[in-house]
C-alpha cells in the first residue's frame, strides 16, 4: 500500500488522469491530495464561504469519478480542475444571489485576491503609509485582472492554462496582466 502510494507520488497529473479513466481509485485519491489545497485557496477567493467551496470540490472529484468513462484527456489536468471548480462555484453563487438578498461582504466581490499587504511591504520595502494606496490600487483592478494575477503569480499557471480557465484568448490574458501591472507599477518600481 505504502509502496503503491509512493508510485503515485511520482506520476504527473496527466498520467494520473489516464489511470483514473481506467477506474483506478488510487489515482483519484492522488489527484485529490495533490490539488486540494490549491483548489481550495482558489475557490475561497471566488466565494469566501468554506462549506460552499468544500462541497464544490467534492462535486468536482465526484463527477470526475462518475464520468470517468466518458472523459477526454484535457491538455492540462490542473486547468481542467480549476475550470470545473470555477463553474461549480459560479453556478452556486448565482443561485445564492437569487435566493436571498445576500451579505454584501461575501458576494459583492467577484474575485478577492486576498493579498498579504505585509508581504508586499516586506518584499518591496514599502513605507507604512503606502499600504492604503496599495489596497486601493488592488481594489481598482477588475475582477478578471485580480483573478489572472492570482492564478499566474501565485498558482503559477501558464498563459495557456489561464486562457482555458477564463475562456478567453491568450492575447487577452497578456493584456489583462499588462494593464494590471501598469496599475501597480508605482509600488513595484519605486
Amino acid at each position, binding site marked *: 500500500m505504502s509502496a503503491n502510494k509512493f508510485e503515485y507520488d511520482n506520476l504527473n497529473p496527466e498520467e494520473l488522469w489516464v489511470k483514473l479513466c481506467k477506474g483506478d*481509485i488510487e489515482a483519484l*485519491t492522488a489527484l*485529490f*491530495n495533490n490539488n*486540494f*489545497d490549491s483548489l*481550495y*485557496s482558489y475557490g*475561497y*477567493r471566488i466565494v469566501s464561504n*468554506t462549506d460552499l467551496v*468544500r*462541497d464544490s*470540490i*467534492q*462535486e468536482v*472529484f*465526484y463527477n470526475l*469519478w*462518475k464520468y470517468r468513462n466518458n472523459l477526454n484527456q484535457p491538455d492540462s489536468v490542473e486547468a481542467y480542475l480549476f475550470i470545473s471548480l470555477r463553474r461549480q462555484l459560479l453556478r452556486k453563487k448565482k443561485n445564492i444571489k437569487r435566493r436571498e438578498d445576500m451579505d454584501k461582504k461575501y458576494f459583492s466581490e467577484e474575485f478577492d*485576491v*486576498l*493579498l*498579504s499587504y*505585509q*508581504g*508586499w511591504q*516586506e*518584499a*518591496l520595502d514599502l513605507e507604512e503609509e503606502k499600504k492604503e494606496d496599495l489596497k486601493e490600487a488592488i481594489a481598482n483592478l477588475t475582477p478578471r485582472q485580480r483573478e489572472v494575477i*492570482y492564478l*499566474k*503569480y*501565485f498558482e*503559477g499557471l*501558464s*498563459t495557456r492554462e489561464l486562457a482555458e480557465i477564463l475562456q478567453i484568448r491568450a492575447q487577452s490574458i*497578456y493584456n489583462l*496582466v*499588462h494593464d494590471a*501591472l*501598469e496599475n*501597480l*507599477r508605482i509600488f*513595484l*518600481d519605486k
Partner: protein
Amino acid sequence: MSDTLSELLKDDSFVRFLKRNASEEEIKQWTAWMQESAKNEQLTNRAKLLLNKGIQTVPKPDSDLELERLMERIDSEHRYKPLQEIKRKHNKMVWATMAAAAGILLLVGFLARNTLLEQNDGTESSRAASINYQLIETTPGQKTTVHYSDGSDIVMNANSQMRVPERITTVDTMRVWLEGEALFSITRKPKDESRTFIVHTLDGEVSVLGTEFSVNTTGGHSRVVLKEGSVRVNVQDSLSNKNLQYDLEPNHMALFSQGLDKIEVEQVNPEVYTSWASDSLVLDNTPLSDLVKRIEFTYGVKVRVNNSALLDKKLTGRFKNLNLSFILEGIAKTLDVDIEKREQTVYINEKTDL
C-alpha cells in the same frame, strides 16, 4: 531583458523561472542574468519574495477528512455499481477452474467470492458471504421474470440489468441492485418474520415489506410507482449529508436522484407504469414525449419527431399487442401523423397538406 520589476513580471519565462516551471535552458539563462549585476540579483530576490509572501494563506479544511467524505460518497454508489466487474471476475474463475485441480480451486473460488462481496457490501460482509448473487441482463425488446420460492416475482423490462440473490435468503434483508426497469411483486411475510426487501438504485433505495411496485432508473433519475401495499423511498446524499425519506401510498409516483434535495411525489395511474409487465401498454393522458422515451427504451430504437409540439400531445388508451409496428400504427392513427421506420430509427412527422 528588463530592468524594472513590473517589466520582468510581464515576462512569462521569468515567472516560470520563479515558479520553478522553467526549462533547463531558461534556468541557465536567468541564472546567468542574475549574476550579471547586484541590481539584477536584488530584483530577482524581490520578485521571489513577493510571489512567496505577497498572498494571504487561507485556513484550509483538513484534506484527509475531505477525501474520506468523497470516498464515502463514491462507495455508496459503488456498492451497487460494479455489476460488470463481478461478471468479469466470475468468468475468470470459471477459466481457472478448468485450468487446474478442482478441489483447491473451489476453495480459491469461494474465497475470491467472499472478498468480492466484502468489497461491495462493506459492513454486511459476513452475512452477504452466504448469499449468491447473479447478474441478469436484458437486451432491447427482451423481458424476463425471476420467480422466487415464496411467490415473489420480479419482471425485468428490456435494456436493464439487475443483481439479485439466486434464491430467497434466510437473512432478514434481501437486496437487489437495479439499473433499468423492473416490476416487483413481493410476497408479504407472516408478521413474526419481518423481512425487508430493498431495491438499490444509483439514486437511493426503495424498501418494502410486501407489495407491488415498479422501479425505473433510466432518464437520469429513479422513478418508483406503487400499485399496492407500501414502500419507503430512502435517499442518502453523502454530499449534503441529507437523509430523505418518503413513505409511498398506492397510486403514488416518486422521483428522486442524487444531488436533488427532495423526493418528488405525485398521484398517477399506476397501470401506465406497470402495464408493460403484462404485455400491454396503458396510456392515460400520457404525453407523446413519455411514450417516445418508453418506445426507445423498450425496443432499442431512436425516435425522431419533426415538430416538437407533437411531443406535448396526450394519448389515452390501451395496446394489447406490444408489437412495435402495431403501436406505431396506433399512434399514427390517433395523432394523425406519418410514421416511418427506417432501420433502427422511427420518424414521426406531421402530415403535410398535399
